């Protein structure tokens, strides 16, 4: 496959365009998609770039189909992906569930938009619950929440490798602002950064005969007996829990002596970071913690931060009405530090919003 960048280069672009270039650099072979704001330009740029690099695209009749075609393509050994948002994310939960059940290496980029329901196209962080736990039953998935264009680029590349290495559906969770915002980043070919792309391989149509040299490749999402399902769910859950410590990613800053720890994710964590800088300059002991993987959640790491800081309070800031809050609360069950919240559903959060809230908590 043709190398996309012969040397690393700086570029200035939108987050959606960044995602398309990252998929290209990661060696994605095909995108299946259906238009929806605010992810449209991932498709637009992919369709402009794909023919030049011998890659493929299919616009399906809806998001259910886009998700299932990715499920099919990856079973054939193709490095395939999709991108969606909002009600498209709702429709894709069925194929995402199939990918969870059949352990399909599916990469999906979600650019969160506002809800409930259909036509609100603007920014929010309201798809956290849906993206992390949206499937029916109890499947397992890996969700990276990005904050910058550089991270969109880095994590789309990483996401393909995570999906193909661990065989769990993997998500890059952005939002309407990250999708549309313009900022500089570095574009590169993974091999030039020492990143080896995990080889893809067909999951079906394997050589040889079942029972004569190889076992059946039993990719299954239906079970006839309760006990069958029980065994599968227990086995996959145990496997997921065993790999979780090597999957979790987070950032913490100025937490060692922090009296208040701000927890936020995605683009809001940039505001938290700025707020910590400004509040520290004023002599206030404030730190911040940002889960990068929302699932698996860096729970032990957050507990450690709470313990070592002896923080008196936690502030959870999000552009939603409590989705990160619920996630954090369940993950640190048993900790007694009081939690305060700054919920701004659908609205962007800047450093001043967080600073004002912190000052009201002192």
């Amino acid at each position, binding site marked *: 496959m043709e190398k996309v960048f012969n040397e690393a*280069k*700086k*570029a*200035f*672009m*939108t987050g959606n*365009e960044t995602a398309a*270039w990252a998929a290209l650099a990661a060696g994605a072979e095909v995108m299946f998609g259906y238009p929806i*704001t605010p992810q449209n*330009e991932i498709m*637009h*740029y992919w369709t*402009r770039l794909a023919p030049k690099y011998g890659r493929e695209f299919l616009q399906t009749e809806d998001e259910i189909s886009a998700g299932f075609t990715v499920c099919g393509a990856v079973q054939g050994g193709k490095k395939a992906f999709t991108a969606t948002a909002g009600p498209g994310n709702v429709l894709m939960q069925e194929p995402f569930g199939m990918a969870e059940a059949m352990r399909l290496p599916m990469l999906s980029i979600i650019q969160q938009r506002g809800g409930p329901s*259909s*036509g*609100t*196209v*603007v*920014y929010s962080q309201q798809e956290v619950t849906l993206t992390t736990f949206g499937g029916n039953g109890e499947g397992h998935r890996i969700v990276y929440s990005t904050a910058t264009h550089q991270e969109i680029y880095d994590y789309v590349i990483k996401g393909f490798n995570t999906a193909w290495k661990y065989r769990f559906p993997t998500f890059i969770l952005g939002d309407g*602002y990250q999708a*549309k915002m*313009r*900022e*500089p980043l570095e*574009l590169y070919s993974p091999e030039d950064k020492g990143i080896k792309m995990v080889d893809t391989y067909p999951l079906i149509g394997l050589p040889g005969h079942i029972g004569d040299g190889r076992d059946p490749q039993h990719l299954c999402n239906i079970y006839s007996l309760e006990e069958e399902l029980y065994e599968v769910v227990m086995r996959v859950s145990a496997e997921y829990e065993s790999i979780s410590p090597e999957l979790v990613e987070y950032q913490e800053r100025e937490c060692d002596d922090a009296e208040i720890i701000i927890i936020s994710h995605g683009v809001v964590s940039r505001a938290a970071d700025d707020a910590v800088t400004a509040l520290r300059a004023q002599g206030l002991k404030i730190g911040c913690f940002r889960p990068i993987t929302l699932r698996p959640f860096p729970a032990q790491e957050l507990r450690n931060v709470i313990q070592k800081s002896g923080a008196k309070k936690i502030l959870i800031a999000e552009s939603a009405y409590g989705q990160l809050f619920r996630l954090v609360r369940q993950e640190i069950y048993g900790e007694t530090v009081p939690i305060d919240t700054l919920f701004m559903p659908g609205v*962007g959060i*800047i450093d001043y919003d967080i600073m004002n809230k912190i000052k009201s908590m002192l």
Partner: protein
Amino acid sequence: MEAYVGEYASGKSEIAINRALELRDQGRIVTLVDLDTVEPFYTLRSLKPLLEEKGLQVISFSKQDAFGLGETGAMLNPRARWALRHSGDIILDVGYGVYGARTLNLVEGAYESQELRVIAVINYSRPITGTRECIREYILDLGRVDAIVSNTHLGSDTNAEIIEAGNTEIMHVARELSIPVDFIAVEETFKDSMGLNISGIPIKYIHRYMPAAMW
């Protein structure tokens, strides 16, 4: 009358704002028009009060104009449709990349006007216009282009080398296609560090307004 077209993040809005203010500073009456029908509430909305304070007439939606269509209706601001009938100078900020340039057909009189110039803003720091061949192909895709603004930058990571590399390539393509380059746009912080301009094309130092547009 000038319509600024170009790729996402090429700098159309920044150039349109700076050009409108430049004309305003000459004592002219200037109307700045947000002609993004796909994201009609984004580009200039949050800057509108500031720009009006500076003496521009701004045709752009405001928060109180929102009426809940979401993505179910691509909206053309009725005042934008008739913008070319305003007296004074008209600057159109045409959003949404190649497809956006086609939005001009929604503006009454755009194709008949003898005065309207369609000006492509090109940023060499974008891979889609990051080589000579790509720039040429891109400009040809745009359709009618009467002039070019060379606007190579990397946001807060801009440096003089990248500006000069961009200018060289953009100028080369402009000569090939026989399209005039109206000016080279450079962020004002580079006023003292830019090398000698040997091309004879004016350099305009621009102030960045768009970073303040947090929607």
